């Protein structure tokens, strides 16, 4: 009796399920791909040829004031610079800390293609409060995979703190960065190391939007004697 009751109850249930499935299939069969009419590109003549230097601020607004602890000073001036490319294509590594920030030819050092770094030895440990970087600003460019690290280890093996990283796809293998890419301007890029203690500052880049080379006009590191 119980067996018959189960069949009586299960039968309609199975029928309902099969019916729903069939209905749903018929609805799928009744569907068709929505053909989107996407707008076509507009044909237009030769664009402007830009060859002139561009020293204007592209971001629109000048950078606001940046506050640092009292006693903070420029600690990188004329300090020794080494690099992954010790024979630059153009210029000299000393340009990085020579206080010359002009965007013209003769003021920047050009390192070889691909991932390269420069490293500044501050000669002592400092509480770092600001790092200002000018890669190249005579033309609007975006430098790829900019990573800035500080450490007390000259080989950057231990005690490394990353204070800036916009390598969002980890091309350089230093970890995925969350900082944004930016267009170079004469204002330079201000990085906040948030008081990290270090003697060495290392800056990585991996080519730019105009070519695969790496450039530095100037790097300024501001700090106070380590407490």
């Amino acid at each position, binding site marked *: 009796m119980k067996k018959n009751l189960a069949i009586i109850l299960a039968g309609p249930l199975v029928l309902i399920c099969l019916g729903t499935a069939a209905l749903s299939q018929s609805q799928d069969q009744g569907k068709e791909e929505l053909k*989107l009419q996407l707008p076509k590109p507009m*044909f237009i003549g030769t664009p402007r040829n*830009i*060859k002139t230097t561009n020293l204007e601020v592209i971001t629109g607004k000048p950078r606001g004031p940046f506050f640092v602890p009292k006693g903070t000073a420029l600690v990188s001036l004329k300090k020794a610079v080494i690099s992954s490319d010790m024979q630059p294509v153009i210029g000299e590594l000393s340009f990085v800390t020579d206080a010359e920030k002009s965007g013209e030819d003769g003021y920047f050092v050009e390192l070889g293609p691909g991932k390269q770094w420069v490293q500044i030895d501050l000669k002592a440990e400092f509480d770092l409060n600001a790092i200002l970087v000018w890669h190249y600003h005579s033309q609007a*460019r975006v430098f790829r995979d900019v990573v800035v690290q500080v450490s007390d280890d000259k080989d950057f093996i231990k005690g490394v703190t990353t204070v800036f990283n916009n390598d969002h796809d*980890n091309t350089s293998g230093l970890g995925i960065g969350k900082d944004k890419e930016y267009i170079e301007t004469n204002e330079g890029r201000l990085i906040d190391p948030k008081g990290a203690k270090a003697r060495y500052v290392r800056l990585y880049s991996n080519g730019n*939007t105009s070519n695969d080379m790496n450039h530095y006009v100037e790097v300024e590191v501001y700090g106070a004697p380590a407490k």
Partner: protein
Amino acid sequence: MNKAAFRGLFFIIVVGALLFRLLGLDLRPMHHDEANQAVKFGRLLEKGEYRYDPSDHHGPSLYYLTLPLAWAFSKTTLASLDEVILRLLPALFGAGVLLLLLLFVKGMGRTAVFFAGLFAALSPAMVYYSRFYIQEMLFVFFVIGFLGSLWRYLLYPWTAWALSAGLCAGMMYATKETSVIVFAAAGLALILTMVFQKIKPQTPYHFIAPGFANFFLGLIVAFLAAAAFFTSFLKNRQGIWDSLAAFKTYFEKSGADGFHIQPWPYYFKLLAFSKSGGGPLWSEALILALALVGIVSAFALRRQKWAVPSPARFIFLYTLFSAAVFSIIPYKTPWNLLPFYAGFIILAGIGAAFLLDLFAKIPVKALVLLVLAGGIYHLGLESYRANFVFYADPANPYVYAQTGTDFLKLVKRVTDVAAIHPDDKKMLIKVICGPYETWPLPWYLRGFERVGYWQDAGEAGTLFDAPVIISDQDQAAKLRPLLEDKFQSEYYGLRPGVFLVLHIREDLWQEYLKRSLHGSIFYGDVILKRCRNRP
């Protein structure tokens, strides 16, 4: 130079010219203008659709003459085309210019034609724009064909030369609107050459003015050739009227304030001395200097050693008038120098032969040859640098509003993320850019089936349905609050100082990161191989 030596040497020059023009045709990223022309050609190839646009993009010959090439490679769609097939056409016409120089052998002499051929084969400007899918090199080919046919007609007033001149004139008109400048310059040069020949004959030869019948026949052939192309082979009868209406547009454009306004010496500065961006010095001064010698020879007291006069006067007058008009017109782009620069090249050939002829003593002749060889080597080296090293570098004077190699990295990224998207080539891509920032995207995205183009973010509808959005900088600023950090954004250089921003939806980006960090190989790697920078 005897006939056999000339044949052998000229053959070597033509082969060299072909090599310079054909190797690595896909090295340089497609220029904005090339991409425009390529997509227009794609429509003709796929649907048989072409309608002359009197407001821009020049004449129809480029598209119709590309058709046989595409068919020869069994290409029937835009997506199946590539840069090599398209650029093959101007490359062949660029090398063809050398063969047309043979029309001037009578009167000019074999040595002069040999040098003119050598200069045409190696000139960085001539080689660079022979590798450029725009109308210019076709135009130069027809200009030289027209001048050569006129010259031959002047020497031997046969109907065949009148017909040949007419055909070239028609093709010039069907190629570029600036053909009217060449017509006027060549016509005036022809009349003055006949006048000079009367006043101060180089030889006792008497030119015969073109007879009415031959002139009329040439005109008919010119009209038929131009009409065939402008009417899209009788599919668009309005085309022939539009070709006339275009002159109003181009006349207005030539003097209007705009991107391409330059002072009159622009072309000569470009050719004589260019240096920028820390790059090397560029100069085709050798050709200009030898052309001056050629001009002197045209009016020198010495009599021609041939029975027929030299074309030097005719070419000089043509070059003078056309260079003057092109220089006076405020609108200038570097490729516009070619129709008159071709005249300089012929004159330089005459100048080189004149110099060698001038000095009878063997040591002096050898010294002249040595100097010429040094100059020619330098020209070849510059041409190599312009076309194989600095092909997209603004330090190259012929690089103008050129797409940078960084742009190819954007194409690679789009191709890579599409490869892991379930829709692959059907993935929806929204391009939100101003018209000048849109190109050459339509060429590089030709393999994707769902690409939409808008000029304003507000018009592009829902943004989150597109896994990939490409915008210019202005639109990126508008998109930023709309995308709400749900897209990963990356900058790519389009041209110097001009950026595109690629926005990849976060879900796709994370998947891409996951796979790329595990070393998957993407289709785009093929494209990146072409992306080479200067050393």
